[in-house]
């Protein structure tokens, strides 16, 4: 109780960095306008190198646990030679990245750009309006032909990243490959075969299959040690993954990156709906009967991945088969399950602009044009191939016009260390042409099962103006926290469904209607 140096340290850090920001604010804010004029002559309009005289850029980036240092990655080594732009990365591990990123802005000690920065809509708007991030729309028009072409091809990208004032403060990772935008539903077909069960098609089928997995010893070791079903653990503020995976079976969609159904141009936040109650009751039944992983709410990501690879799990969700490659034949992807009211929808899925806020340029950057040209390359087939696959011959070979990792390189186990895409969220294009690793035949097949049930349009979270964004943030802070906590309790049986009315009343008290209206307005504006 007397020991809490860390909270002191953080408090002091924030406060003192704020104090510093106070002193240096003038220089920071005024820096926004001038660089555009002063150095535009240095950049070449097209071709490589981007600049004749080498320049240096500082970028802040997130590294996933599987990544190695960015300076060792072939893509950046090669690209530096090509472009004459030397990038110095400040790396922050995924754990604590959010904290470091926010402190960077709060203290106004900005890098030239943020790479793989995972900015949220609110952050982009807030720091953009504050002048810390510069508007990119004109730069994109002039210096980013690849990105511009993608934005013309998929109009929803531009809609999803432009603020109501018409500014773009951050550019996304773009995923034109359907299979990379949604988790598949993997079921243990070896167990199904052994127990002579047919593929589950409805939620009731699934229940029966899971019961059989639990009781009939499909792994044949004589012990009741099978894990019928598991899912990723929730991350605070980002919802429960298991709900996203199951909600489609109960007619609950996830539009605008939130718990929203769209029916006849009406926005409906469904957290208090009876359908949601049915879903939670179903999951509660699974949990109570030990069909659902009891560690689901507290396990670490590594535990979850280990369970995939163990072969002792009956049913789980993931985008690829990377994590259980060695036993991939045991599993197969299945279609979304048909729910009690006949709903069958793959509700979990990202828009084409999958990773919002993957890249942004700050006001201290002296070469915004160069920076824009630098990043634009990765939105081309050639650039994204370099990013994902490294050097031809050494890391990959081309078969039928599509790059594949060489077997030697995959076997070396170094693949995730040498590419910044491993771990997700990197600003680049993921298309059919560069997806051989994330989209092997088994994953393609699983995706085909989902395809008929994907929603026609997937709207990304809307961009609000700063005041509205702040309001949404305040409302969602309390609402999301409440919803996540109560859903977890409903599923785990720590809260009885007798309390459902109280739950609904509290949602009302936390102003769910006001939030719904804001989303409705945003939708109406978008439709016009």
């Amino acid at each position: 109780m007397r020991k809490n140096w860390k909270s002191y340290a953080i408090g002091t850090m924030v406060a003192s960095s704020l104090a510093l920001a106070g002193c240096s604010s003038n220089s920071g804010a005024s820096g926004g306008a001038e660089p555009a004029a002063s150095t535009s002559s240095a950049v070449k309009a097209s071709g490589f190198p981007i600049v004749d005289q080498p320049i240096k850029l500082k970028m802040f980036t997130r590294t996933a646990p599987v990544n190695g240092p960015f300076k060792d990655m072939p893509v950046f080594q090669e690209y530096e030679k090509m472009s004459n732009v030397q990038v110095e990365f400040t790396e922050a591990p995924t754990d604590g990245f959010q904290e470091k990123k926010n402190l960077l802005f709060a203290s106004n000690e900005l890098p030239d750009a943020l790479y793989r920065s995972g900015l949220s809509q609110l952050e982009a708007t807030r720091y953009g309006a504050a002048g810390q991030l510069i508007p990119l729309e004109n730069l994109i028009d002039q210096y980013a032909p690849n990105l511009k072409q993608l934005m013309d091809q998929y109009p929803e990208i531009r809609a999803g990243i432009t603020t109501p004032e018409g500014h773009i403060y951050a550019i996304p990772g773009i995923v034109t490959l359907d299979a990379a935008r949604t988790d598949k539903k993997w079921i243990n077909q070896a167990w199904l075969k052994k127990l002579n069960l047919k593929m589950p098609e409805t939620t009731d089928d699934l229940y029966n299959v899971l019961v059989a997995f639990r009781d009939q010893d499909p792994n044949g070791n004589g012990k009741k040690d099978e894990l019928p079903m598991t899912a990723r653990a929730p991350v605070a503020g980002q919802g429960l993954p298991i709900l996203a995976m199951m909600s489609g079976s109960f007619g609950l969609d996830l539009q605008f990156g939130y718990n929203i159904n769209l029916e006849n141009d009406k926005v409906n936040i469904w957290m208090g709906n009876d359908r949601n109650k049915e879903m939670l009751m179903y999951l509660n039944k699974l949990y109570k009967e030990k069909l659902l992983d009891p560690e689901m709410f507290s396990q670490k990501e590594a535990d979850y991945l280990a369970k995939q690879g163990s072969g002792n799990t009956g049913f789980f969700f993931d985008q690829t088969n990377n994590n259980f490659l060695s036993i991939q034949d045991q599993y197969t992807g299945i279609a979304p399950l048909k729910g009690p009211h006949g709903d069958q929808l793959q509700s979990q899925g990202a828009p084409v602009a999958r990773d919002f806020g993957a890249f942004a340029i700050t006001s201290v950057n002296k070469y915004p044009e160069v920076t824009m040209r630098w990043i634009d390359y990765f939105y081309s087939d050639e650039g994204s191939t370099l990013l994902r696959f490294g050097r031809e011959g050494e890391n990959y070979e081309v078969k039928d016009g599509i790059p594949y990792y060489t077997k030697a390189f995959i076997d070396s186990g170094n693949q995730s260390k040498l590419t910044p895409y491993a771990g997700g969220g990197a600003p680049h294009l993921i298309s059919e042409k560069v997806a051989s690793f994330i989209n092997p035949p088994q994953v393609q097949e699983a995706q085909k099962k989902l395809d008929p049930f994907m929603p026609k349009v997937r709207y990304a979270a809307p961009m609000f103006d700063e005041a509205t964004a702040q309001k949404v943030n305040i409302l969602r802070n309390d609402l999301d926290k409440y919803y996540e906590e109560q859903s977890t309790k409903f599923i785990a049986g720590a809260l009885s469904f007798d309390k459902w009315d109280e739950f609904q009343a509290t949602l009302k008290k936390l102003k769910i209607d006001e939030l719904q209206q804001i989303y409705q307005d945003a939708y109406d504006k978008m439709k016009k």
Partner: protein
Amino acid sequence: MESVQPKAAAAATVSRKRQGSGLLRRMAKRYDLYLMLLLPIAWYLIFNYGPLYGLQIAFKNFNPGKGIAGSEWVGFEHFQRFFESYYFKRLLWNTLSINLFSLLIAFPVPILLALIVNELRSKSFGKWLQNITFIPHFMSVVVIVGILSVFLSPSTGPVNKLIEWLGGEPVRFMESVGWFKTIFISSNIWQNMGWQSIIYIAALSGVNPQLYEAAKMDGASRLRRIWHVSLPGIVPVIVILLILDIGHFMDVGFEKILLMQNNLNLETSDVISTFVYTTGILKGEYSYTAAIGLFNSLINLTLLLLVNRFARKTAETSLW
């Protein structure tokens, strides 16, 4: 704890005598000592008083681009938002109750331990006991929480194995609303009692041995001697440590709570400091959480003043 001992000692000397004439002359004479004082003063100014400047963002809509001075004033808006927040009551209650229970339960334990060590005839056993209770203090919080989850795991943890062996149902300790505070406080005791008892043991060794002998002559039993000689001997230390503890009343073990938190125990584990971290640092709401932090500190200050006054009146010992 580390900082507590020098503070306590300093407080004692300061309270003795303060006024005097020719302060400057005496300062000039002992200039070397005052030079040494410069460093700590600078440290306090830079790291403890300097940041106070930033506190004003609690009354502003802080915008990092405009800086602290440039952001607009909004008065008590953020405080109001916090007081009206759905989570206000829960945060306040959790923060207060965890501290209150810690104070009631965890505070006396090191005193008891010190008394036991002091009474032990076998000095080597006393040393051994001290060392054993001492070691957990040096483990990092992450390791401690790891140990807790391993021991309390419902499927493989030894505690639940024992419960099952005795015929009970395994308990999901780490994911239960009811168990959180118990686990948190008792593991705190386990971790800190040895370390915290040092200062009491030191104080006990300062009690005049003649008092014990006199008590023995008068036929006082061992318990009587503890009650009438040992305890009164360390009361000033106890009171001062108590006051210092209360000064930190609202700062619970932030790291440890954060590590132990999950959706299922949030109802009892959500405290002001973790709330400040999750909304302030992770979501970038600096003004709002600065207001919450300020509110937290104000409660601390009020409690400290009250307890200090109370201690001065009743136990005649106080910080100032």
